[in-house]
């Protein structure tokens, strides 16, 4: 106990150095908590944007459809699947879709794009198509309604009420079919791919143009009551639906590249933490050595009167331990304050797209228990480990040399 008491009191002998060391370690912890919070917020935003913009948390297709989006590979018994989905209690929402590549023409220009036939009502539970309407109205079920991406509307030089002709291939026989639509709304997702290439019409119109029955669809998009997150992607429903004919995949399986990016983002906290604490550890070593050199005569005296080398080691390690504890207190308080601010106010980065994922909203920092449990434990451990070298040095001081050196 006396060693601990002596170590604690020693911290206040050179208050300025102790404060600087505490700030170095404390700010490292604060930075790590803040960075981890922002990364978690960014991942949540990315996942929300991936699943919430259009994809949904999971999708059901005919096996092989995703390889080249062949319109002929539609789900023939979509009605049966729809019944099954309606009965499933784990689902929050689902929406059938008919999808086809199309030539999209206006009176002024022509472009290629992808046309989604959507159920105007059900789609609201899945995607942000309705929220993305920046001009005009969302689909109401009318036969000739069409929503077009902002960039595509500019390319085709069309506005609300203008005519659009879709030219596409009918399913099964591949015959070309044309249909006339009027622009009922302009959508802007903030994601280049969607804004330049996508158009949305009512699913009944899409089925009619493609020659599909109302029991057929290319895709079902699903959202669950307990959202499928990065760490929770298991679903009994998807497992049950998966078969030879049907492919039911979660959003991570649908976006394997993004999954890798998100995984890397998760580990970035670890990497930043390692760099921060390597620097902080060097600071601790430096500070401890300065403190030892300042007290070298005193170490000579206490060794002379019979303090064992291991007690000197303990003394230095206790000092490091107390510095780490004080630093953790400061780091946690500051980290919590910064986290509280950034989780309520958010950090606005403006509109940006990261690896095809739109990040057009502010990032709201997220608290996680490990920031306040594991991180401080790492800080204490690393600080004490960093002090082992100076502690060994102090324990090996030869009293006669220490006493003469400072006289």
């Amino acid at each position, binding site marked *: 106990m*006396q060693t601990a008491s*002596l170590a604690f*009191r*020693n911290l*206040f*002998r050179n208050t300025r150095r102790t404060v600087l060391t505490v700030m170095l370690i404390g700010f490292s912890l604060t930075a790590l908590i803040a960075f981890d919070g922002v990364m978690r917020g960014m991942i949540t935003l990315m996942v929300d944007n991936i699943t919430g913009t259009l994809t949904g948390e999971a999708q059901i297709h005919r096996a092989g459809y995703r390889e080249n989006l062949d319109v002929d590979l539609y789900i023939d018994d979509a009605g049966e699947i729809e019944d099954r989905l309606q009965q499933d209690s784990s689902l929050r929402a689902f929406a059938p879709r008919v999808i086809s590549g199309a030539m999209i023409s206006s009176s002024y220009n022509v472009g290629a794009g992808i046309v989604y036939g959507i159920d105007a009502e059900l789609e609201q539970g899945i995607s942000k198509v309705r929220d993305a309407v920046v001009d005009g109205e969302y689909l109401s079920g009318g036969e000739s309604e069409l929503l077009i991406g902002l960039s595509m509307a500019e390319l085709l030089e069309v506005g609300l009420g203008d005519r659009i002709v879709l030219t596409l291939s009918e399913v099964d026989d591949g015959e070309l079919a044309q249909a006339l639509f009027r622009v009922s709304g302009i959508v802007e997702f903030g994601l280049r791919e969607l804004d330049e290439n996508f158009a949305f019409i009512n699913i009944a119109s899409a089925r009619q143009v493609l020659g599909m029955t109302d029991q057929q669809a290319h895709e079902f998009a699903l959202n669950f009551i307990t959202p499928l997150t990065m760490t929770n992607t298991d679903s009994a429903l998807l497992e049950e639906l998966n078969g030879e004919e049907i492919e039911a995949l979660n959003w991570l399986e649908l976006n394997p590249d993004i999954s890798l990016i998100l995984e890397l983002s998760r580990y970035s906290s670890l990497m930043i933490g390692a760099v921060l604490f390597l620097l902080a550890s060097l600071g601790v070593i430096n500070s401890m050595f300065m403190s030892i050199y300042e007290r070298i*005569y*005193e170490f000579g*005296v*206490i*060794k*002379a*009167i*019979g*303090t*064992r*080398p*291991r*007690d000197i080691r303990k003394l230095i390690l206790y000092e490091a331990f107390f510095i780490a504890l004080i630093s953790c207190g400061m780091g946690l308080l500051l980290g919590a304050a910064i986290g509280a601010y950034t989780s309520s106010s958010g950090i606005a980065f403006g509109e940006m797209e990261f690896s095809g994922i739109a990040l057009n909203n502010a990032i709201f920092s997220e608290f996680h228990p490990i920031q306040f449990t594991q991180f401080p434990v790492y800080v204490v451990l690393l600080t004490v480990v960093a002090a082992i070298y100076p502690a060994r040095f102090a324990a090996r001081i*030869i*009293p*006669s040399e220490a*006493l*003469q050196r400072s*006289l």
Partner: protein
Amino acid sequence: MTAVISSTDVCRFFGDEEATLVKAVDHVSIEIERGEFTAIVGPSGSGKTTLLHLIGGLDNPTSGAVHLSGTNIAEMTGTALSDFRRDHIGFIFQAYNLIPVFSAEENIEYIMLLQGVDAAERKRRVAAMLAQVGLEGLGDRRPNKLSGGQQQRVAIARAMVSHPEIILADEPTANLDSKTGIALLDLMKELNEKHNMTFVFSTHDEKIMKRASRLIHMLDGKIDLDESK
């Protein structure tokens, strides 16, 4: 009389090459008996402090043996040597030898904590030592709130509280004014006579030389003269 300190042909050389070799202590053999009040004297660089460090186990000799109460401490290292010093030797150095963040009481108590003496006994001995060195009522003061003389009194109390057989003092009056130095020496002489405790000084202070019962004169690492009064 029994020799409590005995050095046999002890040498302490610094440096490896012959040209730069410093013979700080060169084949010194002495015997100091229990209860002696001995001063090792000599000019700066004569080797008196090195000899005191060798006797106190603060340094290991290049060759030779140093026996304290029959134990050859020249062969001891690490924890064993630390424990031996703790239990058998009391040290008094020049000023600044107290732990600055401890009070006078805690400084005196520290060595007994290392020895594992129980709390009640520690308290009793600290109070007794403070009274003996004339610092009653000042036990809760930290060193920076004590005068130089008072600090050295605390150092004497710390050196004596564990009841060592030998007290080694390296220039204990060097940083004190003449009056305080005399008072401290009188105190040490009194303790020496009262407890039959062996005191060995390294010094060139005339006041100590005057009070010492034996003077060992060192010159160039060797004993030049050994005189008993």
